[in-house]
């Protein structure tokens, strides 16, 4: 009963083949049986899930479901505030934090009838690319348990890939949805900055963070995006642009679309197996009527460096709130306020968070602000202009999602080596664009490879349309990881 796509589940509920309660119970049983191996969840919300399922079941029985997500079991990255359910952000400093309100996306999913199975593991405060930086436990890649699932939304990607949830939400600041989606072979969509409300998303880097779906297929991603997209008066950076019907956009018409192939995304450092699979995917799309041309995004090689000033600078400011006063951990026994905060933060933050807070504080400190943060913001303009020039000629961009496939636990001890993993996802965040990763093959060792589609601002529909056509024209979707 687990492993059905969201749209197939909706169909099964309509026909009366199964019920939300039966499916929710099946997911909870599978989590109990298998999550010990992969560690996707930090918290499983069994009782509220069963209550939500019963309510959905009553609506389905009355032939009045709320929509395509009614009674669908989903998982939430533990960076999203859930009223009355602890929200840790993968950090010891928030280990016992119970939010008094729901994030807007959580409220919207509830209003659509979705059943929340629980909260998923992540790199602490979404800082990381492997989910090894969770304060609680590592998460394992279901395709090879010795390997990482990517990050920081590793728990959500694994929940979807291992059939421990029908769909999930994650957040993406520098690739944290798309990279784990590529490593685990799911669909992952980072919407345009401003498309989805960030109210109730624990902040990492506010000018880059965006919430989006991780899904079994492209149609499911469209349904999840539909439920969460749109303006929210509680997030002044959410944009009041109309939200199209994303499922209706999946009409199979891609003929005549122009795709740009950025040569910098196939440069040195990209695994040849990945480059080959992505080139083959591009050929498939050409065969389906998409025209392609080589383009150049010349600032690509500098985006990572700019990001590692901008994101830590914003993080150092956002994380100043964890001072041991209003919520979260407090280390007792300090003689004054500064000592209390300094000891609390030392005990509550992990090594990667400390590193980024230090880097960001340094980049913003007197005498260095202009040389570092100011320069990075100007480079950000160059990255944005690269894309603007490209999108004057093409409708979308096709590239690899990551330079390498899932690596082994402990393989990237050097922080810089870990950061380089995000070289192909970060430019999209700096420019605020939508990006989608869809499975486009496997390495000889059986690890999934991601094709990245990058779109114009607020043009998620084109990405979904092209990815859907690609997914249905290729055999990759059918393969599942063997877990037992």
């Amino acid at each position: 009963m687990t492993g059905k796509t969201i749209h197939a589940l909706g169909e099964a509920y309509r026909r009366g083949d199964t019920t939300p309660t039966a499916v929710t119970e099946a997911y909870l049983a599978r989590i109990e049986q298998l999550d010990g191996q992969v560690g996707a969840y930090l918290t499983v919300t069994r009782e509220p899930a069963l209550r939500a399922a019963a309510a959905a079941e009553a609506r389905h029985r009355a032939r009045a479901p709320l929509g395509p997500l009614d009674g669908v079991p989903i998982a939430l990255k533990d960076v999203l505030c859930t009223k009355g359910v602890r929200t840790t952000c993968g950090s010891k400093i928030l280990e016992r934090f119970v939010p008094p309100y729901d994030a807007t996306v959580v409220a919207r999913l509830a209003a659509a009838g979705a059943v929340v199975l629980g909260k998923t593991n992540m790199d602490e405060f979404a800082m990381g690319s492997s989910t090894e930086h969770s304060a609680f436990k590592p998460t394992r890649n279901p395709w090879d348990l010795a390997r990482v699932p990517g990050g920081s939304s590793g728990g959500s990607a694994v929940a979807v890939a291992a059939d421990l949830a029908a769909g999930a939400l994650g957040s993406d600041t520098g690739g944290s949805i798309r990279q784990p989606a590529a490593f685990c072979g799911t669909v992952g969509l980072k919407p345009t900055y401003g498309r989805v409300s960030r109210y109730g998303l624990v902040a990492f880097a506010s000018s880059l963070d965006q919430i989006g779906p991780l899904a079994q297929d492209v149609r499911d991603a469209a349904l999840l995006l539909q439920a969460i997209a749109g303006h929210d008066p509680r997030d002044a950076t959410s944009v009041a642009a109309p939200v199209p019907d994303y499922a209706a956009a999946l009409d199979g018409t891609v003929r005549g679309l122009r795709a740009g192939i950025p040569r910098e995304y196939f440069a040195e450092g990209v695994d040849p197996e990945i480059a080959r699979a992505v080139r083959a995917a591009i050929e498939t799309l050409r065969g389906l009527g998409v025209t392609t041309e080589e383009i150049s995004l010349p600032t690509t090689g500098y985006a990572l460096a700019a990001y590692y000033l901008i994101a830590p600078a914003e993080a150092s400011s956002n994380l100043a709130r964890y001072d041991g006063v209003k919520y979260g951990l407090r280390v007792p026994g300090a003689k004054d306020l500064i000592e209390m905060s300094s000891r609390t933060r030392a005990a509550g933050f992990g090594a990667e968070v400390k590193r980024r807070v230090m880097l960001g504080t340094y980049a913003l400190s007197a005498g260095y602000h202009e040389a570092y943060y100011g320069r990075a913001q100007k480079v950000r303009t160059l990255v944005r202009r690269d894309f603007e020039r490209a999108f004057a000629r093409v409708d979308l961009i096709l590239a690899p999602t990551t330079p390498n496939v899932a690596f082994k636990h402990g393989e990237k001890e050097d922080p810089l080596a870990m950061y380089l993993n995000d070289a192909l996802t970060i430019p999209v965040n700096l420019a605020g664009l939508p990006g989608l990763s869809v499975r486009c093959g496997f390495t000889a060792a059986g690890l999934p490879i991601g094709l990245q589609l990058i779109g114009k601002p607020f043009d998620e529909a084109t990405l979904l349309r092209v990815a859907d056509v690609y997914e249905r024209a290729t055999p990759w979707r059918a393969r599942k990881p063997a877990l037992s």
Partner: protein
Amino acid sequence: MISRQDVEHVARLARLELSDAELERMREQLNAILGYIDKLRELDIANVEPTSHAVPLVNVMREDEVVPCLPQDQMLANAPDRVGELFRVPRIIED
């Protein structure tokens, strides 16, 4: 190059009490990361405007209306220490 003294200063600004070993490791790692970041100097940024935000938004305004907010007891529920309806912190003013 960032010195041990710089690292200690930044740790104070960031309110992070770091051990000797942590300070030393931080110095090495920050130097490696800043060394990589130095490649930004290769780019000509004269006459380039900074981007602080990807979406051009200007002064998002709303009506100044009173709306309900979260009740005080819920806002205090996560406090590590409190007295009545106040957060309690260590003394910051001498008697």
